[in-house]
């Protein structure tokens, strides 16, 4: 059964980094549920998007202490990957398990950290949490290397419960201490020193001698628990199911108050939460099943434009719409700096609490950057995508009425919806000057169509996904 393009565009804004008119055309003959399955079942797709060429073209990728280049590579993947949900889930977990370059004495371990999130992003949560606890960047970030059998450091144990899996109010201070004891000895090998040859990765080791093997009591269970046992207990709790579900809702469905408010503010949509929680528990924490259920549910389909795009989404989706970005595209190297001035430095979140999302992404400076960036891209006819957007309206078989013209602009840009206020402004422009369509092609016609796109990407609604 064919699917409405507007719905596919919505799905791809959330499960990936946007779409193009061409891609929408291809997908629209498919059944919606099949499109969701294709996004979720990433193991069925073989995809290595020309990354060997990328690394040859950007030798800085081999540098040991330049994470901006790794962000370049990540942006390239966001735009080109055949598995967009994999990149989106990686970004999601990066928001939740916010770990940063700023505190990583061995910088390259941050690159491994993101790769770990990518490899595990759609697996069972227990596998992801185990690899997270054994990740050298995380171990250093939350000081688990200072968590010793005889002298515990609670930093990781605390955040594992508070920020990574359960949320405040679902465990006691004693639970934190016992969880921390279970993770003693989870550390990394002494890396090769920085001087004189630069940064080297560090590797996880389990130091049996530094591990407290005594009996622990955690969330009502008793035993000589190691870290993996703690994770096993966590993922079976309702609290964990609720916690992950609320994060997923906030990132993929609609902006919500963020985690510090969760113990006070009830969820926006309790029914949606119940569906996600049930799937999580029934599937025993299988993230693929949770995502599948979420994308196929009515609450998801009805959530169009309920989120403010984060800078990574804004940058990647606008590029995807307007340009074809090959591995040699010199614009790639500017995207890291661009996302920083828009308020989101990937691989370097502000704190372990991650980024402030929703409308907090927007201030005068970041809004200016976003608008100017989108205007630059869409008004430049050297960009194949932008040119296609303009051409396709000019080449219409019939002359377009003003309303048809505005609707055409909205559809081409990803089946966007705007307020009456914005629609009227666009309609006003559309009703002036030469008529568009019927292959009537000249400078004035082009200029008018470009102006409409320019105004659309400048609109408040274009900030939303």
């Amino acid at each position, binding site marked *: 059964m064919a699917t409405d393009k507007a719905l596919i565009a919505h799905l791809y804004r959330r499960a990936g980094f946007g779409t193009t008119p061409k891609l929408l055309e291809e997908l629209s003959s498919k059944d919606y549920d099949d499109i969701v399955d294709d996004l979720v079942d990433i193991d069925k797709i073989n995809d290595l998007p020309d990354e060997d060429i990328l690394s040859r073209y950007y030798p800085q990728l081999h540098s040991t202490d330049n994470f901006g280049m790794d962000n370049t590579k990540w942006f390239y993947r966001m735009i080109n990957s055949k598995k967009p949900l994999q990149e989106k889930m990686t970004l999601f977990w990066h928001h939740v398990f916010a770990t940063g370059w700023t505190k990583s004495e061995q910088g390259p371990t941050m690159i491994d950290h993101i790769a770990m999130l990518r490899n595990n992003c759609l697996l069972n949560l227990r596998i992801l949490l185990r690899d997270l606890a054994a990740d050298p960047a995380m171990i250093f970030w939350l000081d688990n290397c200072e968590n010793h059998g005889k002298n515990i450091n609670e930093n990781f144990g605390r955040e594992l419960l508070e920020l990574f899996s359960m949320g405040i109010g679902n465990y006691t201070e004693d639970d934190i201490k016992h969880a921390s004891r279970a993770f003693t000895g989870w550390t990394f090998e002494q890396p090769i020193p920085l001087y004189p040859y630069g940064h080297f990765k560090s590797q996880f080791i389990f130091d049996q001698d530094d591990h407290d093997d005594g009996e622990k009591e955690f969330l009502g269970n008793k035993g000589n628990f190691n870290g993996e046992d703690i994770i096993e207990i966590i993922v079976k709790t309702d609290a964990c199911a609720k916690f992950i579900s609320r994060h997923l809702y906030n990132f993929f469905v609609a902006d919500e108050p963020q985690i510090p408010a969760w113990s006070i503010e009830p969820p926006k949509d309790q029914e949606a939460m119940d569906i996600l929680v049930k799937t999580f528990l029934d599937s025993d924490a299988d993230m693929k099943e949770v995502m599948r259920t979420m994308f196929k549910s009515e609450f998801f389909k009805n959530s169009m*434009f309920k989120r403010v795009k984060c800078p990574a989404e804004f940058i990647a989706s606008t590029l995807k719409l307007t340009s074809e970005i090959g591995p040699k595209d010199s614009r790639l190297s500017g995207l890291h700096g661009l996302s920083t001035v828009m308020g989101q430095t990937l691989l370097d979140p502000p704190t372990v609490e991650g980024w402030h999302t929703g409308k907090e992404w927007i201030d005068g400076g970041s809004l200016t950057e976003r608008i100017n960036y989108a205007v630059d891209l869409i008004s430049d006819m050297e960009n194949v995508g932008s040119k296609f957007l303009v051409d396709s309206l000019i080449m219409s078989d019939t002359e377009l009425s003003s309303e048809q013209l505005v609707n055409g602009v909205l559809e081409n840009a990803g089946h966007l*919806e*705007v307020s009456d206020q914005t629609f009227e402004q666009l309609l006003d422009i559309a009703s002036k000057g030469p008529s568009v369509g019927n292959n009537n092609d000249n400078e004035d016609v082009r200029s008018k169509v470009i102006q409409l796109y*320019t105004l659309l990407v400048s609109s408040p609604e274009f900030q939303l996904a």
Partner: protein
Amino acid sequence: MVTQKKSGKKDPVLVVVQLSGGNDFLNTVIPFTNGIYYDVRNYVGHKEGESLPFTDDLAFHPNAEPFREIYKEGKMAIIQGIGYENSSRSHFRAMDIWHTCEPNAVATEGWLAKVIRELDPNSSNPLTAVSFGKGLPRALAAPGVIATSVDNLDNYGLMTSIEDNTKRMANLDVFSRMYTPADEWMGGRHESGVVMNYLANTGSGVLQGADMLKDVPSRYKSSIEYADNSIAKALRDVVRVHTADLGTRVFYTQHGGYDHHAQEMPAHDRLMGELSQGIKDFMADLEEHDASEEIVILVFSEFGRRMKDNGSGTDHGSGGGAFIIGNRVNGGLYSEYPSIDPSEWLNGEDLKHTFDYRGVYGTLLEQHLGLDPTEIVLGNFEQLTPFK
């Protein structure tokens, strides 16, 4: 609405210069008569005779002659050993702490954003605070507060890539209507009115600010020739906007590149020259525009650096220094220089701070801007008396 002074004294203005990356205070204000300095700074230090003495036992960095001149004119207060307990060595966290006055928790409101709220409670002037450079610093960010971030004053605003000015103006006209706050946002399945109105207010602020700033470059004339570097350019922009009399009370500028883990000597030399000459030119420019009396400059960095060098540079440390500069300032040394005796190093490797940074903010807020600092710096901290 532009705040126009009718007569008499001009409104006080604060200019912040942030040295990003952690300035090596030990090599900025050098205890040149102390043998320990030469012991710990074997590779990354300045020989006696090269540094520029300005008291019996302190000397400026060899490239900071303009600082020595400003000091001798009595216009520079040096706050020695500024910091806070359990100083963070993370750049971001440390900057956050400086920007929010909250060392022990993650805060959402910048200290200068709270200043804007005090000075312009109805957000009537988007230029009450102006930051130069890319991105808005956390210090100026808080919910409901509008501050303007200018990357390039000569080409500031929205849709600046559109070369045809008539077209651009037509677009901005439509923009202003798209960004008009509304009681109800009908049509479309978009986010709630709260979010839409926040976007609308922010967009309107950008437009209004850009409109106010557009004639600024053409109105400015000066005989001062600034050097070609980022801090000189930003300080020149401060004078351009300040002398346009648009009601700006807080300016923010940043001088980056102070994170000298390696190859510190040539890099720090360059920055010290740029910074000190930039400030010197800035003051001369203000003088020329009869605008010196109302302005005070704060120069700070997120932390100092490790006592011992690592052979090529210095790693993150604590206990840096700050400068308060201006005609109003009663020049001299304030608070104590942290002991550089190894037995008194913090954690066995760092300078220990002698004065809380929130007390310095408090000093500027109360004694310069005339505001009650308690709510802004989140507490009562000892102040200095660096003003005439």
